[in-house]
């Protein structure tokens, strides 16, 4: 493998920003899963988890933008500007670059609707936001298919690691939702729990409500 020089700098920059963007998007998805359950991170108040989710997503956009622009600017392979957002518009790695465009389009929709959320109905915002669950796998597929260097070594371990934590996170989210009581039954359930002082339920409820 050759070193970094004027002809390979853009190529390296594109790969590096792509890897960072994947890591950031993985973190954003995990934080998003945590936000949906009002989860906390150690040492952070509840609102900071939401803030981190939002701010990391904006930083991820910056890295995706750099990743796309450097790939287009790199003259070694021919990727037109339109291919960044229009799927299948790239002569080079037509399908795999197309996946990247799909993921980018979805991400833009998710972020723009979040920025103007005040002006949208909750239902519309949420419907678009749920697309994030489709955006991440497409982005992951794009990274593993269009970059030959991700298919072995440290980068392969990294990519597979990202996939494992996202799958585990979604599994945790679904399991948590499945164990939820229906809304109307929660109050009576908690009431009976706290009104029996000797039961273990009482202690658990007390622990939970010490920070209601």
């Amino acid at each position, binding site marked *: 493998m050759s070193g970094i020089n004027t002809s390979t700098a853009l190529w390296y920059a594109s790969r590096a920003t792509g890897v960072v963007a994947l890591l950031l998007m993985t973190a954003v998805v995990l934080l998003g899963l945590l936000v949906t359950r009002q989860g906390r991170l150690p040492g952070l108040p509840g609102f900071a988890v939401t803030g981190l989710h939002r701010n990391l997503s904006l930083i991820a956009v910056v890295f995706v933008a750099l990743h796309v622009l450097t790939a287009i600017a790199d003259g070694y392979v021919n990727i037109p500007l339109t291919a960044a957002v229009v799927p299948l518009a790239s002569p080079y790695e037509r399908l795999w670059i197309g996946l990247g465009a799909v993921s980018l389009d979805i991400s833009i929709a998710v972020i723009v609707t979040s920025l103007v959320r005040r002006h949208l109905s909750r239902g519309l915002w949420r419907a678009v936001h749920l697309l994030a669950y489709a955006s991440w796998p497409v982005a992951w597929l794009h990274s593993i298919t269009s970059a030959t260097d991700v298919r072995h070594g440290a980068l392969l371990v990294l990519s597979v690691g990202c996939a494992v934590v996202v799958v585990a996170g979604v599994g945790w989210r679904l399991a948590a939702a499945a164990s939820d009581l229906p*809304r*109307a039954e929660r109050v009576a359930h*908690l009431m009976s729990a*706290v009104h029996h002082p000797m039961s273990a339920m009482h202690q658990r409820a007390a622990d939970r409500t010490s920070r209601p």
Partner: protein
Amino acid sequence: MTTATQDMSAGDTATSLPRLLPRGGQLAEDWHTHTARHGRLPYRERPGDLVRDLNAAGLTGRGGAAFPVARKLSAVLDAAAKRRRAPVVVANGAESEPASDKDATLLWLAPHLVLDGLQLMAEAAGAQAAILYFHTDRRNDVGRRLRQAVAERAAVVADRVAVQLAEAPPRFLSGQETALISHLAGGPAIPTFVPPRITERGLDGAPTLVQNVETLAHVALIARHGPAWFRQVGTKTEPGSMLCTIRRADGAVRITEVPLGMPLKSLIASPDGQSLGPDRALLVGGYHGTWVPAAAASRLTLDNHSLGAIGARVGAGILVTPPPDRCGLVETAAVVRYLALESAGQCGPCLNGLPRIAAGLTELATGRPRRQTQADIERWAGQVTGRGACHHPDGTARFVRSALITFAAEVDRHNQGRCSGTNKKPFLPIPHGSARTEEDWL
């Protein structure tokens, strides 16, 4: 009628009360007796007039929040003009405070005055739809009376906007504005997050004006007699009269119309004029209200300016004096247990906090409290305040805090394993049956 209100109304017919309820008796007014007393409803043709009159009258919402009626109407008119959508007007008769019975009584005795107010409000707002929302789990069959009243009006073509009747589920929160909208839209009667304000985006997205039924009855009279007439009773800053539910220690319940600014002392005196002993307590404003020591109450008047000084509010005009053989802590614990069970279960602080507070109060009331119980209750009350979609946790916390202050001596007694209550039968009314499934909220 009561001695108190008759004293106030003696002589001058212009300021005589009651204005809303039928005079001399509990006979309900039908269309004939209603029009004989009040005349036909005065449509304005020019909607702006009523806003001006209501503003001059200084009428505030009688559902408890005391929000200026003219300002709410203006907000709906603005939203309707801006978004080019015809508004919806809702008469809210779902008084959820179990200790209150004034709205049900008004709907039972003078339904046409409320329906007049609803028509005038619909005209002023330019509404195409009007809804009357009420509870059915009351002593009287309010639903039958309202259907009858609507039919009477249809026969003489009194209404310009068709009125739809809607029944509220028997839940404490069903009269809360956003819960009401959710229910009318076919969902459960649970509060939703604000914004959007329902004056901008309410029922089916239309600007929605929700007014308490008593408020609308006042509107019907202000439209007839003008703002100066309305201001002949009440105080300068809080004009007019209001319906009150007064529950005396002997168990008597009376619904009476009193001018704002009336001394509490005269309202809670027993029939023989005996005032409340200084060691007793008075509940002002219902289960989201405040316990007030009788000694303090004797200096207060029924208006938010006076009550605000001790952190209380007029609310929906509920005044309760439990008898001396009841323990204030036992009464409070029973009510808070009910309030906790009436949580919609959607906001964490309310869902987790209220049952804990209720359990702590039960511990305090039954006389075997742990050393930290009172401090726990106070801490939890602080933690739930201001953190719900609606004010259910805030109101409950206010009620609990005032109990711990007003019954401080009783708390000490309970900490020593004693209780001054000799009668364990609950005095404050508590509806039985709590929500178990989603159906119970529909």
